[in-house]
């Protein structure tokens, strides 16, 4: 694992993309094939299952380091990363014999069969046999939270460099339902058999947010628009008489949405559709909250199935009659999609996401303003002549989302961040006014610059009213503009509301606390949009 730890250090030690890709490509050229495969798996989010709980690891590490548990916990709070904290507090070691990454992972997986004392002995012995930098990587494998500062896209690019295989082709090969136990480097990367994995999805095409207005995109006649629905972006695959549903996060969610079993009654084999999974009733989408109840549920009770039935609104056709259509222009793919879905009954689990007709960009802007009322997040713009290309690219696709909800609120609690921001106060709780009182309604921890966080941190230190563990109460002085994407009722919260994706848009130094928004205002928003 020494070379893998060295790879991690190299990736961690540079901020330059080219250097990261070069380090990774070098590793892919020299590492044993089994280790390459595991590295691809880890960097595409395929982690080995956790076989030791974080609580046990903390106890064992504190004991091995000769520290009381509270001091270990305090150290963890400062470092912000469990794997790193453990690596740092353990007594120094030069490391022993080198074993491959795949061998270590194999042993970690086998831990689940051991009784706890044996597990403990194995982990402590492993720590003793590893040098500090290897320990850190090893702990990351144990805790399953593996991030190497390399996106999947960069990993794919590095692998393309190392193998000479086209990057887009590789991206497709690396998709789908595989793990290092079910395949080999040869079968996955070098010489895949297309019939071996009929569930394999295509890499999703993603879009950048359009800043401002679309006038710069040129002649509106070259573009199509459709609603950007607020659900789960998915790919529905019908091949070999079986159907599969993938989420954009490349999770196989077929079993969570049994409604799509019936897709086979309506659509021919050899079909792949890109669309949005939504909770729908009477042909119209329900608010996101309805779908949220279904997310994360592996089995769906009957009642919920009736309350929030799921269906797909189709955006695009990627495969028809078993033929890959991705190189065809959007215009043609869309025409075939419309043909395919025409005449399906309203209760079919797949329907067409209607195109949004427009002539001028001004027309479209007016339509966009109606998005929220239609429960859409905004519009998608797609160039009629464009192929379907995986990944996020500029040029052919744009998302033109509605402006977020906005509210002015005052900070009343602050808490230190984690990891990168372990030494700054970055997690704030915000309140709105309710008569004489301030009622907390949301937390937010992003949106400010490091310089602003430093300034706030200095202020919090000097103005702490009270401490509750890591949380500090501060006087209601600083006003922030909070943006969010949605609002719903929440009896668990004092304010009665919960927000989606709250973040700090601006520090309103110009606003006195007397002018922050009220709880009544939030309740009005809830009544209109919740």
């Amino acid at each position, binding site marked *: 694992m020494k070379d893998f730890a060295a790879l991690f250090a190299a990736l961690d030690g540079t901020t330059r993309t080219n250097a990261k890709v070069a380090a990774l490509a070098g590793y892919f050229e020299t590492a044993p094939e089994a280790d390459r495969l595991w590295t691809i798996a880890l960097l595409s989010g395929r982690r080995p299952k956790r076989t030791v709980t974080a609580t046990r690891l903390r106890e064992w590490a504190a004991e091995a380091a000769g520290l009381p548990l509270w*001091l270990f916990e305090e150290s963890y709070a400062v470092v912000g990363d469990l794997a790193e904290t453990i690596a740092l507090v353990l007594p120094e070691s030069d490391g022993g014999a080198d074993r491959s990454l795949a061998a270590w992972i194999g042993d970690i997986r086998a831990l689940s069969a051991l009784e706890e004392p044996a597990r403990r002995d194995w982990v402590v012995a492993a720590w003793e046999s590893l040098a500090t930098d290897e320990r850190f990587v090893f702990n990351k494998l144990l805790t399953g939270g593996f991030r190497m500062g390399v996106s999947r896209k960069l990993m794919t690019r590095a692998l393309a460099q190392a193998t000479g295989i086209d990057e887009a082709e590789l991206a497709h090969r690396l998709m789908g339902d595989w793990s290092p136990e079910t395949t080999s480097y040869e079968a996955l990367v070098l010489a895949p058999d297309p019939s071996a994995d009929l569930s394999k999805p295509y890499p999703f095409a993603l879009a950048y947010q359009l800043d401002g207005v679309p006038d710069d995109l040129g002649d509106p006649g070259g573009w199509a628009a459709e609603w950007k629905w607020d659900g789960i972006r998915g790919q529905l695959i019908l091949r070999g008489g079986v159907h599969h549903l993938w989420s954009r996060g490349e999770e196989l969610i077929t079993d969570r949405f049994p409604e799509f079993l019936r897709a086979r009654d309506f659509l021919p084999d050899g079909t792949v559709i890109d669309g949005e999974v939504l909770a729908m009733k009477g042909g119209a989408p329900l608010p996101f909250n309805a779908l949220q109840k279904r997310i994360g549920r592996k089995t769906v009770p009957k009642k919920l199935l009736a309350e929030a039935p799921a269906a797909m609104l189709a955006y695009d056709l990627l495969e028809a009659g078993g033929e890959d259509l991705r190189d065809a222009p959007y215009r043609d793919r869309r025409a075939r999609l419309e043909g395919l879905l025409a005449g399906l009954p309203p209760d079919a689990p797949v329907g067409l996401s209607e195109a949004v007709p427009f002539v001028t960009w001004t027309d479209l802007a007016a339509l966009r303003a109606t998005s929220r009322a239609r429960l859409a997040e905004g519009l998608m713009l797609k160039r009629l002549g464009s192929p379907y290309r995986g990944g996020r690219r500029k040029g052919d696709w744009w998302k033109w989302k509605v402006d977020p909800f906005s509210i002015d609120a005052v900070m009343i609690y602050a808490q230190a961040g984690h990891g990168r921001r372990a030494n700054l106060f970055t997690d704030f709780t915000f309140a709105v006014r309710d008569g004489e009182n301030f009622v907390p309604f949301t937390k937010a921890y992003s949106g400010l610059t*490091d310089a602003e966080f430093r300034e706030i941190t200095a202020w919090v230190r000097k103005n702490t009213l009270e401490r509750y563990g890591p949380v500090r109460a501060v006087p209601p002085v600083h006003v922030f503009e909070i943006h969010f994407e949605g609002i719903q009722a929440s009896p668990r919260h004092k304010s009665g509301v919960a927000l989606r994706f709250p973040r700090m848009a601006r520090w309103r130094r110009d606003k006195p606390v007397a002018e922050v928004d009220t709880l009544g205002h939030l309740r009005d928003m809830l009544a209109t949009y919740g």
Partner: protein
Amino acid sequence: MGKGVLTFTDRGIYCPAGDFYIDPWRPVDRAVITHAHADHARPGHARYLATPGTAPVMRHRLGEIALETQAYGETRTIGDAHVSFHPAGHVPGSAQVRVEVGGEVWVVSGDYKTEADGLSEPFEPVRAHAFITECTFGLPVFRWRSEAALAAEINRWWASARADGRPAMLGAYALGKAQRLLTMLDGTIGPILTHGAIENTNAVLRASGLALPDTIRVTPETKAKDHSGALVLATPSALGSTWAGRFPRASKAFASGWMAVRGIRRRRAADKGFVISDHADWAGLNAAIAATGAERVFVTHGYTAQFRRWLEAEGYDAEIVETEFDGEALDSPAEDET
């Protein structure tokens, strides 16, 4: 134990028996100074006492001041107190202050480091009844590597930057850390350039007899292409400023104890972080405290709450003292670790 040899006031650490302060942060009549860092040697006092090694930098930074010097190990009587300096190993000239009143000994550590760096006078444990210690890195996650291992790591990075045709730019505090790094650098790799603030301090230390390798001051006329393969020693704040722009494509690194934490290292957006501190690590703090034989320990600047609790569990009578030293300096650690 009776009345304290030292008390803690809003002006600084005070000795009633001798009517003087140690590293005071408000203007006082008589100040005993541990070392020349800005948070310890402040302007505005009527009279100063420091070691001969500390004096030149203090004069350079504070201008005309009434400054007397006293060598390590010598004792002077001020009022009813006997005062002596002992090496703290933090930066050249840095001292712990030993104060004895009526047979009771208290020692103020100032900032200190227990491992010898080949430049500062090595830390010397002093027996005491009470010890006032900093604890900037008072958590067990802070553990420093040997000077030789660090030097090898830095020189490897410099050589690899040179091989890539890029300047190597290293950020470090102008007094102490910068000179220590100079002695670690392998001058056969390439020329060493220095930021003006660092070179000014170099000049003062050279004049007081410290042997430092040859360096080239960076001026507005300096052109990166005239110094290929160079290592540029910069102040931490210069590293992220337009000043650094004159060395395009530089591989940037920080040298600070805070670089032990990956999250902090990444926040600096530097290519590399070297874990090098002029303060004691966890093991160093514990060894230093044990070596004083003190039963009473006052902890200041750093992870005071955690460290006090630890010391209590270890059987010490430990208290937290609020001071205005910048040891905590969590906001921009690389700049302010002083």
